[in-house]
Structures are given as C-alpha cells and as structure tokens.
C-alpha cells in the first residue's frame, strides 16, 4: 500500500506508530478521498505533520470532513477508534456535532481559525455520555487555489484539570461549612447544606447515622432530593447483608425518577463514616455524576468528602455525655422544686409583715412625695408576694401535692369577674378588653382558676401593644367548656411554641412591655388546668397575635344560683394587676436632661418603678437620662454620650448584655463605662455581664449608697479602665509596629533617615510629612529637619528657629508637653505666621517632646497632615510609643556625629578657611583617612595679602597620621601664614618654612604647595616643596599641571639650595587646584594615572562653584572603599568676568549690593537674556546674597560671600556661598522682610539647590535661558 503514498508520506507513516501503520494499510482506493499519493499537496503536508506529531492532531479533509488523525488523538476518540479513520466528521462525532459542526463549517467557509478553551463536550463512550473538556483550535487547510478544503485541529484534553479544580472547590466549601460545627446534628446539617444540586460531581448528598436502637437512619439529606430517599439505609442495600464497610455503588433509580431531559442521577456511592465520638457509625451517600465514570479520581474525591464529614462527626460532642447531663439536670430540678417550696414559705411571713405596716403608713402619710415612695415600696412588696405565691403553688403542683378543692361555679361569670380587674389597666395601656363569657357550669378550685386567668391575661397585656384582648367562655358543648384568651400582640415564634409550657422557659427576642417574669406562669397554668382534667393549647402567629385555648370538663346539670359566685377581689389578683400597671405607667419622662454640666448617667431598665427609683437616687449627684430598653438606650447614647450607663440585664428587645456588646462595638461609645444590675445573683451571672464587657456588676438587691458608690467609681475609673483595655487590644499591633520601626531606625544614620523610617512605619500614622526639631547645644536655637512632602521654600524658612519662636514645635520643646492639633487654623494667634506659611502642607499635626536619658527635652517630633483630622487615642498611643524609640536612635546618631565632630574639630579649627580675600573665591575640604584617628598632617591655607587683588594659598602634607602629625601640621601652617605677611613670594615663604621645619620634630619630609593668585594681572606665582603639582583648568576645559618652581621637601637634612618660583597665567574663569597626594594616589597605580584622572575629572567641573568642585572631586576621586590617606583639597577661582562666567567675592555688607548689581547687570546685558530674565536673575541673586550676609558670615563683616555665575547654553546658574550654617533664626527673618526673599528665590528660579555642610552654605539658582521676548523698554 505504501507505494500509493508518495515519499514524504511514506516517511511519515514509518514514524507515525500505530496510526502510521493504519493510515498506510487503509484502503484509500475505496474511499471517496482516493489514494493519498493523489491528494493535494496541502493535505499530504498536513497528514505528514499530524502523523509525526506527538500532540493530538486531527485533520478534517474535504467537504465531508473525513477524519485523519494521529496516535495521540486515539485517546480523544475512545471507543470510536479505529473506526473513525477516514470516517465522515458528522458520523464519527455525531454526539458532539451540535457544538463542533458549526465551528468546522465556519472554518471551511471563512478560513478563520477558532479557539476553544476548556470547552465542555459530552462524548458518548461505551454507550454512556461522558463529560469531557478540551482546549483546541480549528485552522484552515488552504489549497493552492486559495480555497479552504480541510481543517487542521490541534487539541488537548483538559478534563483532568477542570474536574480537579471544581472538585477542589467543593472540598473547600465542605471544609468551610463543617469547620466549627459542634454537634453531630450541626455537622450533618452543614454537610447536606454544602450540596445544593449545582455541583455536577455531588448531585446529591445524604447522611445516615446509627440511631439508638436502629442502625442506619436518615439523619440529613440535601434540599434537592429531600423527602425522596429512604429513611432506612437498608433499603438502599442490594441484599440483607450487614452495612457495607467499603464504598459501595448503589442504585438510586427506584427513588429518583429519570428526568425527561437527560440521564439524571441514577447511581450513588455509599461511604462509611468512621466512628463518631459517641461510638455511633454512619454512612455518607453521594449521588454520582451520570456523565462521569466512577474512576480513581472520582472515588478519591468522594472518599475525601466522607473523611471531612467523619472528622466533623468525630469532633462533635458526645451524645452519651449529653444524656448524662440531662439526668443530672433532672435531679437538680427536683432539688430545686423542694428548695422553692421551702423558701417560698419563709418569704411569705416577712412579706406579709412588711405589707401591713406599709399600708398603714400610706394611709397616714400626708406628704405626697413620701407617699409616692411608700406606694412604690408597697407595689413591689405585693409583686414579690405574688411571685412567692406563684412559686409556692407551682412547687406544689410539681411535687404533686397540689390539692384542688373544686367547687361548682359558673365559670363564665367567674372568669368575667376575674378578667374585669384588668379593665382599667387595659384602658391605660390602650388595649381593648372584650369579655365574652357565656354561662358555663364547672367544678374548679376558685383560687387556682384565678391564677390561670390572671396569668393568661397578664401575659396577654405584656405582649400586646395595640388592638385588643378577648376573653371568651363558650357554653358547654359535648361535655367540655372552651375558654379562650386571645390577643393581637407580638405573637410567639414557631420554634418557641413547642416549649412554651416548659418550666422556666422564656422565649427570647420577643418585643414585650417587660422582660420581668419567672418563666413559670404558663407552666403553672398548664399544671393547674391539667389538675382540673382539662387541657391547654396555644396557637400564635408572630406579629398577629396569640390565642390560648383551655378546655375544661363541664359540670353536669345547669349552674345553680347557689353556686359560688366569684369571690371578692383577692390581694393576689391585685398583685397581678398592680404589677402590670407598672409596665404601662411611666410618670417620669424617658429622658431627663438637665444640662447642668454634671456627668450624665443613663439609666436603662424596663421596670418603671426601678427606673424611677434609680433616677431618684442618681439625680442627686448627676444628670440623668432614662431609657426603657437597650434599643432606646443606644439611640439615646448616640444623641448624647453619657458618662456612665446603668442597665438592667433582662429587658425586652435589646437586653443588657446585648446593649453592652453593642456599646463596645461602637467606636464612638466603646469607652463608656457600664454598670449592670441584675436579680440573677451569683458569680456566674456576674461573669456573663463582665464577659460581655460590663465594667461593674451590681446584684439586686442593692442599697442606694451602693449604687452611688459604684457609679462614682466608674466615673473616675472609666477612662482609666478603658485605656487599659484598649492598651491590651492594641499591644500586639503596636509591638509589631515598634519592632519594624526599631529595625528601620537601627540602620538610620542621619536625622532625615530617622524621619523617613518613621513615615514608612505604622507609627507614622500615614503622615506625609515629619519634622524633627533639635535644640542646638551652643546657640539654644532649634534646628529643624524635614522628611516627606514639603517644598524647599518652607524648609529653608524654617531651617533654624529661635527657642522662643512662635512655632508649635518650639512650644512643645519649651513646655515639654505634647500638642495634638486636629486643625492648625484653630491655633491661637501666636502661631498665625507659621500657620499661614504652612497652610498648604499642614492642617493637622501631632507633636511630642523628645527627651534624653536625664529626662531633659532635647527636641521634638512632629507629624503633619495636609488636611484637618482627628486623632484616635490608640493612634496617639502608637506615636507616643514611637517617640522614645526615635529619641534613642537620635541620641545614638548625635553621639556618633559628636564623636566625628570632636575628632575633626581640631582639624577644622586649624583649617578654618579665611575668606576675607576679595581676590578669589575659595573652596576647601579636608578628609581624614578612613582608618586613622580622623586627624592628620594635611593642611590647606588661604591668606589675604596686603594687595586686595592678591591671595596666598597653600596645601601641605606632614608625614604620618594622627595627633602627632596634626600638631606638626598646625605649627607649619601657622608659620606659612605668618611668612606671607612679610613676603608673599613663593620662594621666600618656602624658605621660611624650611628653616622653621628644621626645628620642629616630626616635620621631616613635609611637602608644601604654595601659590599667590593675582586677580588683577591674571597671574599665579607658585612653588612646590616635594609636593604634587597644582592643577590649572581654564574655562575652555584644558587642564595642565604647574610643574615649575620645584623645591625639595622641608627638613630633609640636605643643604638647602634656594628654589625658584613658577609663574603662569591664571585667566578669569579658570580654576586652580591645590591638593595632597591622598587625592590622587592609589595602591598599585602610578602617580601619573592618578594625576590624569584628576585632570579629567576637573575639566568636567569648570562651571561648578569652587565649593561644589571640592565636594565632587572628593567623591569622584575616591577609590572603592574610600580614600586611604588624608586628603586636603583647595580650589581657587580668581574674581573676574568672562563672557560665560562672573566671579566675585562680595563683602558681607548690604550697601555693597548696588555696585555688584550694576556689574552683574552689565555682564548679563551682554548675554541678551531679555529684561524679565535679567531682572529675575539679578533679584534672586541679590536676595540670596542678602540672606548670606544676614545669616552666613558669623558676624564677621570682613568675611566675604562668594558669587559665581556661569552662563551655559541652556541655563544661567548663580551660586552664592557663605561660610555659615545660617544658625540664626531663619523663620524670624520674615520680620525683616528677608522671608520674602526666600519666596522670591524659589518663585523666580527654575530650580534651587541648597547644600549645607560644616564648611558653609551654598545656594545655587538655576534659570533656564529662554528665547528673548520682545523687550520691554522701561524708558
């Protein structure tokens, strides 16, 4: 056959494995496509590509889309292989033709390729539909004619991944639901709840658990199949065999009818659940996806689900334990009944003794206020008596010692009479009372019946807020009498109905007039009714009403006139009504706000008497507000925040515990102390209250004094207590923040670094700006360091401020007290200036003093925000905690800085650069070698000469390091300076030094460079005693070393031969550099290399101010790891002008400015910059000089301010350098109008650079050259 293939296909089939062979052996001659050797080239190419590929590829050839595919595609075909080869697409893939047919047709028609990602295709395999997912592309096979005559498909099956992902989601969901279930019941509910019928692999889920008597009872089933699965596990099992231990596939067909539109769930997998804690076992039934085979992965997934449920069941509480607890409770209950019986008797006597005298006192009392109090006492004593009686009666019925003494009565008349005592109460409560009592003879114990009716009525009133209460006694029918008490009240929730008649059961969360009640009323009613051979039922709809239906046996025969009419109003009946009266009466308005400025106490109690009593007690000391329940209390608190809340625990709607929880959860209220009152005595009850967040717990009864003491204590301790709790709450967060902060500070080496670290950590409270004020030891001024967002002008203005400056930060430092400023505009007028200056960046701030070890205030830290804001106590606490950490880090930095300064101060003092000369501007720098004692033998020197156009400069190097060398250096330098005063010529000065050095031990081999700069004749005279040559760089960027005037080093012991002077031109704009060899020498490198490097580096700096030249050279010339030797460097630029540079040494006097201005104006005029730019440059320059004169010359008017202006192609850069640090109050200068100068400098310059160092302050203003606009002619 292969001979009908052609050579390329022959090779491909040889490489194509099984499909290669099948393709070759296929009888193509009988196929509509014919022999492959006759196929179009593109088909043959595609076939060769497909067969040799290891990726699943299928070709659809010709209009019928005949299939040709490779080995890897066999898996996709399943049982369609090998019949699919050469088959027409629609016949082979009939099962998925609906989705793919149109796609293929589209490619054939348009040639546009398709792309499908994770497409679901339900493929029928072995007669069963199977859900599979594929990612594939259909691309056109294009004939030479340009017509699409086939489709090339590369496909990959993603079923495994898709299924894996969705099963993992299910496991996660199940785990999430089972987590925290505490009982088996909860676990089962959670498990079945996880199955909502939407997950294809868990279409249904049910749990069977072994019951107490019976194994395998349905414990839970998911919603979609609720009510359809059998109740017994055995019904699912194929035979009578024992419960399966291994996962068992079961047929669910009998229970689940096959849906019309698909296969439906017909099979399930039953998996054993491992023993739960109580020893019970169970099974998990999972429905199986009808479109997926139950393969290993699927089984594994089911097993994992079962394991999850098992684990939850194992964790669930033990049923055995529950049972034992129930037994214990029953015994306890019995004991309680006994106790109640006994105690109630004990209560009755004193209460009776109390009520008598009270009644007498009320009758005799004339003072209405006093009587009011007595009546309150009486009402509540009566109530207590009623409760005791009820308990007693109840206890009797419980112990079955109740002994009804039935008499024959007209139940209708009796009931009506009892109920009518509620008429007035209902009227006041705004409820209608309808009595519909037919005559009905019955035999009842009158007192017991009273209890029944009064209880029911009192309940009805309690829960009814409108509408009516109907008491109906129907005439006897079939030997029974129906008595109904119905209301239109809040109703009872369905879940509470079943337990309504249980002892002590009290439905929660219902709205009621009162939360008072013992929970025995209805239980007692039922007992009493049952004692009479009757029954009671309830039906109720929430928010509609409740009806109590009592049935009693009717007495035979008609009711006779002799039958006992209802007795007179008993005290007991009074007690019910009296108590209920308390719910509807409220003589004190619910809020008493006197506005006296006293602390406000909010009293929350649902009992009107108690509320009134508490209000009376508290009103003597504090303002009082009242609320009848938690909900009203919260509303009141949000209107006006009380200082203390006194609340009852049991209240309708929102009770005391919920109230406390709500208060603690509300950030605005959480700090309000709460005192809880409750009749529930005992440690446990107190624990509940305190656990909920109450601050104190006062059990009833309590004396007035007790209450006042507790509330007073809360008022004073409230804030403290709150602090403590909040501290605890925030401690972890703060500790972490502090740890981060501490770490960040540890690596900070300068105050700005410290501030950056603070801003980056939580203790920075997200502030965009931080300010550090440090008191300067010598001047007492405060030096401010800024970090974050602040424009340069403000930074400059508030660079140094006087200790008494009207700034908040100065106030913090002087007072030692922090300032919290939520809104800067609210600060007093003292701070008006700074507030206005910083209004754009600072509208809120917090400032804290920094203290050293001796508790002296050394500075202050400020955080600032651009918008007003409040500060929460915990935020402030965080900053407060950060401040000492910052203070310590600052101390460390200052100590390091001091150490460095002490070490260099000697040198600095020695090397003070004299800037009195008007002949040149001078820059100098000294850097001690990295590893030595930070002092050394290098010097630089500038000496003004008698001729003001001349200046002598020198750099020298004494052999050795450290203090000995420094001492020698000091002496030689002083000698050089002195020598210039006699005769400044180089040879002479070096000669003097040589003679002097001979007498100074340690001066051997000292090298010196010396030069006299003459700015008038544009000349430099120089000489070097064994020293590296001075470097001269002219403005055209040519550099040369001055190699004449060579002398031997000093004190070499050789016979001194007078040396000669070197002389060279030093044109304006040129730069002369004197330096020591430490700048150029590197180990293992010849000096020439170093000198070449220096020359190259300096030519790049011809238009830099001398101060910047020194700083840059020191940096760029440093070998990796820093200079090994001391370095001294002196840069000199003679005064004078060139077309592109203007250099002046300006006297430190304001009155010199006009002359300078005239010169600069003339120089600028030649640049044709236009009036405006010229003026801007002039103005900014003069303002900067003015500032330098004012702040920078250390009060020595002989010092000069350096002015260097360079005109480059794009910019004019003007630099003003002064030797000071602007130590005087920069902020105060605004009073002298210099403050406006800063505004001008920053406002008119393109860019302002400020460099401040120990050597002085350098301000560079850059102005961009602009095309000259039409000149404005001021004349």
């Amino acid at each position, binding site marked *: 056959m292969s001979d009908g293939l052609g050579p390329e296909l022959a090779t491909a089939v040889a490489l194509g494995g099984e499909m290669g062979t099948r393709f070759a052996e296929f009888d193509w001659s009988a196929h509509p496509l014919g022999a492959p050797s006759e196929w179009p080239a593109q088909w043959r190419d595609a076939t060769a590509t497909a067969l040799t590929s290891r990726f699943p590829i299928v070709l659809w050839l010709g209009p019928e889309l005949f299939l040709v595919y490779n080995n890897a595609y066999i898996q996709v075909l399943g049982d369609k292989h090998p019949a699919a080869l050469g088959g027409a697409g629609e016949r082979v893939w009939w099962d998925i033709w609906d989705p793919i047919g149109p796609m293929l047709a589209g490619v054939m028609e348009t040639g546009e390729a398709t792309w499908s990602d994770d497409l679901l295709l339900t493929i029928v395999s072995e007669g069963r539909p199977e859900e599979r997912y594929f990612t594939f592309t259909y691309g056109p096979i294009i004939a030479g004619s340009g017509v699409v005559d086939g489709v090339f498909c590369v496909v990959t099956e993603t079923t495994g991944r898709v299924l894996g992902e969705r099963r993992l989601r299910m496991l996660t969901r199940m785990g999430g639901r089972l987590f925290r279930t505490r009982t088996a019941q909860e676990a089962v509910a959670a498990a079945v709840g996880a199955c909502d019928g939407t997950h294809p692999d868990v279409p249904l889920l049910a749990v069977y658990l072994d019951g107490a008597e019976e194994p395998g009872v349905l414990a839970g089933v998911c919603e979609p199949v609720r009510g359809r699965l059998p109740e017994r596990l055995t019904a699912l099992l194929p035979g009578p065999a024992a419960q399966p231990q291994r996962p068992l596939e079961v047929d669910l067909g009998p229970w689940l009818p096959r849906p019309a539109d698909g296969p439906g769930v017909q099979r399930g997998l039953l998996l054993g659940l491992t023993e739960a804690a109580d020893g019970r076992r169970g099974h998990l039934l999972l429905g199986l996806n009808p479109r997926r085979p139950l393969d290993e992965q699927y089984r594994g997934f089911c097993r994992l689900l079962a394991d999850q449920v098992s684990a939850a069941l194992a964790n669930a509480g033990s049923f055995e334990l529950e049972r034992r607890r129930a037994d214990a409770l029953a015994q306890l209950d019995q004991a309680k009944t006994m106790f109640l019986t006994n105690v109630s008797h004990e209560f009755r006597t004193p209460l009776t003794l109390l009520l008598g005298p009270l009644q007498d006192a009320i009758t005799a009392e004339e003072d209405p206020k006093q009587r009011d109090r007595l009546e309150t006492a009486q009402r509540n004593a009566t109530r207590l008596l009623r409760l005791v009686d009820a308990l007693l009666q109840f206890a009797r019925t419980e112990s079955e010692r109740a002994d009804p003494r039935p008499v024959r009565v007209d139940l209708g008349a009796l009931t009506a009479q009892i109920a009518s005592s509620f008429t007035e109460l209902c009227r006041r409560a705004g409820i209608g009372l309808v009595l519909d009592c037919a005559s009905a003879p019955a035999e009842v114990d009158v007192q017991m019946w009273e209890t029944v009716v009064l209880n029911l009525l009192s309940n009805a009133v309690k829960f009814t807020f409108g509408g009516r209460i109907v008491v109906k006694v129907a005439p006897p029918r079939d030997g029974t009498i129906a008595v109904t008490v119905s209301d239109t009240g809040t109703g009872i929730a369905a879940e509470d109905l079943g337990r309504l008649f249980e002892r002590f059961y009290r439905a929660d969360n219902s709205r009621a007039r009162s939360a008072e009640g013992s929970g025995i009323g209805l239980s007692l009613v039922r007992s009493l009714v049952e004692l009479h051979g009757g029954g009671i039922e309830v039906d109720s709809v929430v928010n509609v009403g409740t009806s109590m239906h009592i049935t009693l046996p009717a007495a035979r025969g008609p009711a006779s006139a002799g039958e006992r009419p209802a007795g007179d109003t008993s005290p007991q009946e009074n007690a019910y009504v009296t108590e209920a009266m308390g719910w509807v009466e409220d003589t004190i308005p619910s809020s008493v706000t006197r506005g006296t400025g006293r602390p406000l106490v909010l009293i929350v109690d649902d009992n009107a008497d108690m509320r009134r009593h508490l209000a009376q007690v508290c009103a003597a000391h504090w303002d009082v507000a009242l609320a009848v329940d938690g909900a009203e209390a919260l509303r009141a608190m949000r209107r006006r925040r009380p200082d203390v809340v006194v609340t009852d625990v049991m209240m309708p709607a929102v009770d005391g515990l919920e109230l406390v929880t709500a208060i603690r959860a509300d950030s605005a209220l959480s700090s309000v102390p709460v005192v809880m009152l409750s009749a529930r005595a005992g440690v446990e009850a107190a624990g509940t209250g305190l656990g909920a967040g109450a601050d104190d717990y006062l059990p009833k009864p309590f004396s007035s004094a007790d209450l006042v003491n507790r509330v007073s204590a809360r008022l004073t301790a409230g804030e403290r207590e709150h602090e403590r709790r909040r501290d605890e709450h925030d401690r972890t967060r703060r500790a972490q923040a502090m740890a981060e902060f501490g770490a960040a500070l540890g690596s900070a080496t300068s105050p700005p670094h410290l501030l950056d670290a603070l801003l980056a950590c939580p203790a920075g409270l997200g502030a965009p700006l931080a300010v550090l004020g440090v008191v300067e030891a010598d001047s007492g001024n405060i030096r401010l360091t800024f970090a974050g967002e602040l424009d340069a002008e403000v930074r400059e203005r508030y660079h140094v401020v006087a200790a008494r400056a009207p700034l908040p930060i100065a106030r913090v430092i002087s007072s030692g007290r922090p300032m919290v400023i939520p809104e800067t505009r609210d600060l007093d007028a003292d701070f008006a200036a700074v507030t206005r200056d910083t209004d754009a960046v600072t509208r809120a701030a917090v400032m804290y003093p920094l203290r050293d070890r001796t508790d002296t205030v050394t500075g202050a830290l400020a955080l600032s925000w651009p918008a007003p804001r409040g500060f929460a106590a915990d935020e402030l606490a965080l900053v407060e905690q950060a401040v000492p950490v910052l203070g310590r880090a600052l101390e460390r930095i200052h100590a390091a800085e001091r150490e460095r300064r002490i070490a260099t101060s000697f040198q600095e003092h020695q090397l003070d650069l004299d800037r009195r000369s008007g002949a040149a501007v001078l820059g100098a720098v000294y850097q001690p070698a990295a590893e030595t004692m930070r002092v050394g033998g290098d010097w630089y020197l500038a000496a003004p000469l008698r001729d003001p156009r001349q200046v002598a400069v020198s750099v020298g190097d004494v052999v050795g390091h450290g203090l000995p060398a420094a001492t020698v250096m000091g002496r030689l330098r002083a000698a050089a300076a002195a020598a210039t005063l006699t005769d400044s010529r180089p040879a002479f000065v070096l000669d003097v030094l040589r003679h002097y050095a001979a007498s100074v031990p340690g001066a051997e081999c000292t090298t010196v460079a010396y030069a006299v700069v003459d700015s008038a004749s544009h000349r430099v005279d120089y000489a070097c005693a064994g020293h590296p040559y001075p470097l001269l760089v002219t403005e055209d960027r040519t550099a040369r070393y001055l190699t004449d005037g060579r002398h031997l080093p000093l004190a070499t012991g050789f016979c001194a031969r007078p040396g000669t002077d070197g002389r060279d031109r030093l044109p304006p704009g040129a730069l002369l550099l004197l330096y020591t060899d430490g700048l150029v020498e590197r180990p293992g490198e010849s000096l020439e290399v170093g000198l070449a490097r220096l020359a190259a580096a300096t030519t790049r700096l011809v238009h830099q101010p001398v101060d910047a030249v020194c700083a840059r050279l020191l940096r760029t010339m440093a070998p990796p790891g820093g200079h090994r030797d001391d370095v001294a460097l002196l840069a000199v630029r003679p005064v004078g002008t060139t077309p592109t540079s203007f250099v002046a040494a300006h006297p430190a006097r304001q*009155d010199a*400015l*006009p*002359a300078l201005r005239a010169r600069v104006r003339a120089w600028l005029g030649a640049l044709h910059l236009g009036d405006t730019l010229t*003026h*801007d440059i002039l103005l900014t320059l003069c303002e900067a000089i003015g500032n330098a004169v004012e702040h920078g010359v250390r009060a020595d008017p002989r010092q000069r301010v350096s002015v260097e202006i360079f005109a480059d192609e794009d910019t004019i850069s003007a630099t003003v350098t002064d030797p000071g640090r602007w130590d005087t109050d920069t902020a105060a200068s605004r009073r002298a109008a210099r403050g*406006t100068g800063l505004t001008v400098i920053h406002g008119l310059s393109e860019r302002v650079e400020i460099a401040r160092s120990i050597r002085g302050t350098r301000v560079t203003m850059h102005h961009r050259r602009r095309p000259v606009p039409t000149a*404005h002619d*001021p004349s």
Partner: protein
Amino acid sequence: MSAATYTLRTVPDGPVTVVSATGEVDATNATAFSAHVTDLTGGRPAVLDLGDLLYLDSFGFATLRRLIAQHPVAIVLPAQHPLHKAVTLTRLPHHHTLREACTAARDEPTAD
C-alpha cells in the same frame, strides 16, 4: 560703597497725584524711598507708578506694602514689566493701568 539710587517725579493729575519712580530700590534705600513718596503725596490720594523702576527687592516690597497700608497710595505696574512676576509672587497689591490705579486711589479714604 553707596546706596542704590532712585528719582521721583510727580505729575498732578486732578485730585490724584501721580508719582513716577525710576532707578533702583533695595535694602539700602527702601526706607528713604517710602518716606520720600509720603512727603510728595502728603497723605493725599496718590498713584505710585513703578513702570520705569529698574529694580525692587524684597525690602522694597515690604516697605511698599507698609506704605500702601498706611496711605491712600495705589501702585501701578504694567503686567509685562520685568518686575511684575516678583511683585505678583510677593502678593504686593498693584494695578496694571494708571486709570485703574487712579480710581482706586481716589476711592480710598484719605489718611488723617
């Protein structure tokens, strides 16, 4: 060394005196300049025309600010003047035309 120099020229213009300044005003002569202007105007409504002024520094701004706060003097400075940027930057109240300045000066209460 000497102070900066200026000259003042007055042109009576109805009820308003117009004082034109030329030269330079800086820290060295700002106080004298201000006093000079006050002398010339004598507390009457006046316009100080800075259109021909060559130089004015921050001391000058501060002094002028005080001057116009205490006297019925309005400053005029054309918007295209080289000084204008700095004057705007320092928020020195001024007018762009003589007419505006005259109106403003007239409307100001005369100093006692």
